[in-house]
């Protein structure tokens, strides 16, 4: 074991341990295998003519494809907004004192989570067959006016209903878990201050629940983006997957058009991930933005470490003294 001393500033400084680290040959071997496979992949992508990169490049900028991207985005956004509004309502109802509210919320989740989204999309597409006319009137009484279902629930809205209602069931569970994650003491403290239930929910509980709600909801949004590829069940025919499939069938070149579709889905997902990062940061207020730098350090050990300019989470090697058990030096485990 070699030894070094601290900079001249401190003459009494202990000898720092400067030990030879444990070698990890397995890691090196694993990394080498991965690099070899990556090289093979890149080589095949570059040399295999069947990828038809020229066709990929051509259709990547095709108007029909770009419009498909647009419709996919609109479908995702509108369905998610519908799902979020419903999910908040469902989560509140589930917490209600009213047993009818609790029961309806539970049944909704049971039904829409329990049947495939594809089936639900087919159903909403066929709504006009089931109910050709929609009318407004007194329940069980006279009718005021009627409309053709086909005109009201167009393919687009059928797709939104199918995607949104299905998603609301999953989001309701996410929201419920989020609301439950907030300590009951927060509600009690707000009640004791004389706040009303609605204000307590919107100003105290929900903002803190968002920390738990946002990450899985981001996940669900990305899921929704890709689930929109099922809307041909309605049938809704303007989304990205339908467009690239149609082009593939026309040109007899399915592989380059699959790559085109995959490229755009990846681009949107990446943008969504950036958005999620900022939303998470916003709702992490008071938890994630709290580091020793801004406020006082509470943990005394951490305070000492901070005073000494040491990163608590990444401590330097033990300085001075060695721990011995049965005459053997304890190995510093890898962090």
């Amino acid at each position, binding site marked *: 074991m070699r030894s070094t001393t601290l900079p001249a500033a401190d003459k009494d400084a202990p000898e720092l341990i400067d030990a030879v680290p444990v070698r990890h040959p397995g890691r090196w071997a694993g990394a080498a295998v991965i690099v070899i496979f990556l090289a093979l992949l890149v080589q095949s992508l570059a040399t295999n003519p069947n990828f038809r990169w020229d066709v990929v490049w051509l259709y990547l900028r095709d108007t029909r494809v770009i419009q498909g991207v647009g419709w996919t985005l609109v479908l995702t956004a509108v369905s998610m907004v519908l799902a979020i509004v419903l999910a908040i309502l469902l989560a509140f109802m589930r917490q209600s004192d009213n047993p009818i509210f609790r029961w309806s919320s539970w049944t909704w989740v049971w039904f829409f989570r329990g049947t495939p989204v594809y089936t639900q999309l087919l159903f909403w597409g066929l709504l006009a067959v089931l109910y050709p006319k929609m009318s407004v009137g007194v329940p069980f009484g006279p009718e005021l006016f009627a409309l053709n279902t086909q005109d009201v629930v167009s393919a687009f809205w059928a797709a939104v209903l199918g995607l949104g209602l299905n998603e609301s069931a999953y989001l309701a569970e996410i929201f419920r878990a989020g609301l439950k994650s907030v300590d009951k003491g927060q509600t009690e403290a707000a009640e*004791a201050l004389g706040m*009303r239930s609605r204000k307590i929910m919107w100003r105290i509980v929900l903002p803190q629940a968002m920390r738990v709600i946002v990450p899985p909801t981001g996940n669900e949004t990305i899921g929704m983006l890709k689930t929109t590829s099922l809307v041909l069940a309605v049938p809704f025919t303007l989304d990205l997957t339908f467009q690239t499939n149609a082009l593939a069938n026309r040109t007899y070149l399915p592989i380059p058009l699959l790559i085109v579709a995959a490229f755009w889905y990846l681009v949107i997902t990446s943008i969504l991930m950036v958005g999620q990062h900022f939303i998470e940061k916003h709702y992490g207020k*008071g938890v994630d933005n709290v580091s020793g730098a801004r406020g006082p350090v509470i943990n005394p050990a951490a305070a000492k470490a901070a005073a000494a300019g040491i990163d608590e989470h990444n401590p330097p090697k033990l300085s001075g003294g060695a721990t011995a058990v049965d005459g053997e030096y304890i190995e510093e485990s890898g962090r």
Partner: protein
Amino acid sequence: MTGTKELVRIEGVHKYFGDQHVLRGIDMTIGQGEVSVVIGPSGSGKSTLLRCVNMLESASAGRIYVDGELMGYVEKHGRLHMLPVKEIARQRRNIGMVFQRFNLFGHKTAMENVMEAPVQVKGQSKAIARTRALELLDRVGLSERANHYPAQLSGGQQQRVAIARALAMDPELMLFDEPTSALDPELVGDVLNVMKDLARDGMTMMVVTHEIGFAREVGDTLTFMDGGVVVESGPPREVIANPQQERTQAFLGKVL
């Protein structure tokens, strides 16, 4: 310190949690400006009693009046009618509460915690609420911590912010539910000092605590509860120096 006006009146209060009979007929009064300290072993029902006063728990039997107003109900034609939530919220505005676990709003800074109720409940302007919040934080010795989040404050500091938050509503009565029990021993003193200041300024306080020293020094009345009943009550120095009941003697023998 005890004023003539009666602020809190607890009459024959019982509380059941399922089969558990937690409070078994409690009678108690607190005069304006009085500091009423309640002690007792855990499970004696003292915290439940305190929570009944501001309706965080509703009593199963008996009545509680604060400032002459029956809490949680209105009496019409000889029957009690439950008050709607918004009326209960109104009643609570006069009563500040400090919790064992602080319960500061984690997503708000100390300042925002103190401003929340005046702005959201009383409809005070933010500018006025901010000035007042700074005054209150200064009073509890934390004005320079105003922009810190609860997670950046020590337990003692959090509890002092919680006291400032309760005071921001200008309550007539302050309830303290074991305010120092979750604190490291060296932080207890700061919180007790703030409470002593409050008592000196004439605040009416009901304090559930294990701090016998505080009871002796600041309390006007000391009530010892055990098994859901008031075992003994009186001037703190007398009760502590010369407990009449065997159970009080046994309890004090353990904590002193």
